[in-house]
């Protein structure tokens, strides 16, 4: 990961176990195919992050 970031001139961001990303994916995308979906505000997005235990500056505006 660090080698890949270095090659691209990027800093390492945040690394999560795939199980945590699966939880996030279900919360984030579970309603994406609902024809009534109208996007979400930054506050709603942050609430989803908090709901799956993702907090701190990386997951905030």
């Amino acid at each position, binding site marked *: 990961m660090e080698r890949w970031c270095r090659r691209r001139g990027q800093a390492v961001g945040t690394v999560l176990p795939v199980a945590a990303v699966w939880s996030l994916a279900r919360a984030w995308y579970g309603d*994406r195919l609902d024809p009534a979906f109208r996007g979400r505000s930054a506050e709603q997005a942050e609430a989803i992050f908090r709901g799956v235990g993702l907090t701190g500056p990386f997951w905030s505006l």
Partner: protein
Amino acid sequence: MDLTGWLATPAVEMASGKLIGKGFDVSEVDRTAWDWRLRAFVYERVVASGRLPTAAESAVVLGVDHGDVRSAYRRLHDRHALFLEPGSDGAVIRMAHPFSGVPTAFVVRVGGRAFWANCAWDALGIPAALHRDARIEATLAGGEERVTIATEGHRVVGQGEFVHFPLPFRRWYDDLIET
């Protein structure tokens, strides 16, 4: 969410409600409502076919003006509801999250269909959106190694993989392709 009925509904009928029908005049309907109905149509198409419809394809299927579809695609892009291929001027959708309009390192197999995902997170986002079990075949960053991950109900089955999020949430929309 139960998609059974929705997926079984013909595309035009599903997306239409009272707004989209063969050959209707976009200028006579509420523009915002039309945009969101078109978005629903785009998602219905990618779920059914694995491909994101170009503006030309949507215009033909819906029987509407090509320019009206491109304008709506651009407005949806501005709302982050779709992400257009840079330089396509509204003609081509690059991403309708979590689906990718171009081949990527992440192939998601659900039932007999295959989808491209934009990134590792979106690869998990496809079974999450479909509420279906999936098999994800990914080429790891760097391209040297391939992995397969399965989602089964609320479980994810892998080999202890990790996912890298290179940019913080506040920068996700700076450059979606890079993110």
